[in-house]
């Protein structure tokens, strides 16, 4: 195999001059991967007047940043962003490139992978560097891209053995974010944006965004309901319990798909990963994709009518029975004991 670089890149997604949390989380993970490779961690920042974002990346472990600062890339648009990243990746051939699995990242990463003929794995729940033997050939320091697959019955480990660049997207909250205690300042390399006739093929006419009012990641107590609750009316029990214990309402993917609860409250591989002090898991069978998003909770209380539900395997407390009976009872008892 040709010699490869030891650079780990993280694409820093920014909106209105603020870096997305998922990008900072990925910097923290990228730091660990770069250390394992004895390599360097680079933050890739595109935007307009965003030098401050590039400077801030050192707090999360970046060694250096590539900054493209130009009005054309002020807001994300597919062609200006992908054209620039294609060029950078083709020139530098970083070993690893990580993107948040956001609407932006999921539009951008595939284009860059397609152009640079790189392997790309979506929605990884774990990233590890390891030596691998694949088809009797030895590979040193490959990125294991680990994700649940196929209805959650299996965990797949994906590798990109023979192409120089390995890419992955990761959902918000999967990796932990922490600021370094003694960061060293980054060196910023500014790369000029070269305008192109394709820049304005897509123009933004109007954009409406609001920061999510839901803060599942930061909530110490979460009350999560699943499809097992049966109806949207029954899902109100989840809201009642959340109100009583001061928790945030959440749901499994099946509950979101059934319309019981909004997508921004989905816990799991394709939703948010949470690590609360306490999570109630009610009427949730506990498919791996869901468990991947909540099994690091400090305490898990599972309530389910099916004593064989997989959720009981990760729960600290298991209650077999009907939510309609248990929750009102729990709320009454709790209120009584608080007095």
């Amino acid at each position, binding site marked *: 195999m040709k010699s490869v670089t030891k650079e780990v890149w993280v694409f820093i997604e920014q909106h209105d001059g603020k870096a997305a949390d998922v990008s900072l989380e990925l910097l923290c993970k990228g730091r660990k991967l770069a250390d394992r490779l004895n390599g360097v961690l680079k933050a890739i920042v595109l935007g307009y007047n965003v030098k401050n974002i590039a400077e801030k990346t050192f707090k999360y472990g970046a060694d250096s940043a590539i900054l493209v600062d130009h009005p054309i890339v002020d807001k994300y648009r597919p062609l200006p962003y*992908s054209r620039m990243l294609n060029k950078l990746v083709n020139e530098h051939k970083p070993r690893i490139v990580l993107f948040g699995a*956001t*609407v*932006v990242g*999921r*539009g*951008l*990463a*595939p*284009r860059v992978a*397609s152009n640079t*003929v*790189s*392997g790309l*794995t*979506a*929605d990884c729940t774990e990233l590890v560097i390891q030596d*691998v033997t*694949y088809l009797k050939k030895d590979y040193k320091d490959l990125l294991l891209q680990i994700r649940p697959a*196929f*209805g959650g*019955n299996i*965990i*797949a*480990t*994906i*590798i*990109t*053995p*023979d192409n120089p660049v390995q890419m992955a997207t990761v959902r918000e909250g999967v990796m932990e974010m922490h600021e370094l205690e003694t960061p060293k300042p980054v060196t910023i390399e500014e790369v000029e944006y070269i305008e192109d006739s*394709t820049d*304005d*093929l*897509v*123009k*933004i*006419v*109007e*954009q*409406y*965004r*609001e*920061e*999510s009012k839901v803060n599942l990641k930061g909530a110490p*107590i979460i009350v999560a309901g699943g499809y097992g609750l049966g109806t949207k009316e029954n899902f109100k029990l989840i809201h009642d319990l959340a109100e009583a214990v001061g928790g945030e309402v959440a749901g499994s993917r099946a509950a979101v798909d059934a319309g019981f609860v909004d997508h921004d409250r989905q816990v799991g591989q394709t939703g948010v990963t949470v690590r609360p002090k*306490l999570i109630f898991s009610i009427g949730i069978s506990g498919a791996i994709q869901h468990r991947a998003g909540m099994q690091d909770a400090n305490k898990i209380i599972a309530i389910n009518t099916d004593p064989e539900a997989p959720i009981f*395997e*990760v729960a600290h407390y*298991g*209650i*077999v029975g*009907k939510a309609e*009976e*248990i929750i009102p*009872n*729990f709320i009454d*008892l*709790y209120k009584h*004991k*608080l007095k």
Partner: protein
Amino acid sequence: MFNSIVMVKQVPDTANITGKVMKDDGTVNRAMLPAIFNHEDKEALELALQVKEQYGGTVSVITMGPPRASDMLKECFYMGADKTYLISDRKFAGSDTLATSYVLSEAIDHIGNFDFVFAGRQAIDGDTAQVGPQTAEKLNLSQVTYVEEIEKIENSVARIKRKIDGGQEIVDAALPVLLTVVKGAQEPRPFSAKKIMVYKNAKTLLDLEKMANENSLLNLDELVQEYKDKKLYIETLSTTDLSDIDITRIGLHGSPTKVHKVESVVLTGGEATKIEPTQEGLGSLIDELLNNHILG
């Protein structure tokens, strides 16, 4: 007049999995699973049909998959597609998203003459959302993902409403463009009974080959011509038809990503403490949580 090509996929019904679904090489044994029309792709077809109704033009549908994917292509006819293409070859087996997007881009190039390429945002078997943008990149097309609605098309520019994280965006996209359609955007129309009567008889090349083999009075070329004339022919493209295709870029071999390991899920969590759903059981649980300052 706008011509659309819609990329659709027949997917295993991941909600109804039974038996051994993974082969030893880590790829999916699709034969074991009930196959359904990926819903977001159906919504993409609906959007394409609406463009045709409002502005004129044609709707062609392509899918890459095994021969049985022709069942889904018939359903596309039932909804109103003008033409369908089955991209099928054993050499495609094991393709990852990148190799798949390469084949699809070659097929779209082969068909040509389009203003829109539509696809669902993602397919339920992988949820990767990669094939749409990867295909756009290979075709040098701009893209709009997470599309909810096409508000209007004027002077070869489509005004599109799309979903973004935490909100919505309205963009003007110059044609040609590739759009991926998000769940809930457009309710797919029901099948037309009249169209079912006609198109249930649609045939792929493989179907016609079988007919010709079974009956020595039938000639394959004549059969194909007959079904083309009756507009009941599902165009069937293999690597032979896509003459420019680079065989090293397709199938398992042409895929940068490989499945290294597949593990059944082993639950590592400890035994849950069983709590009885009684006053006493719940009461002592609450006491314990309060005492440990987890609640309260």
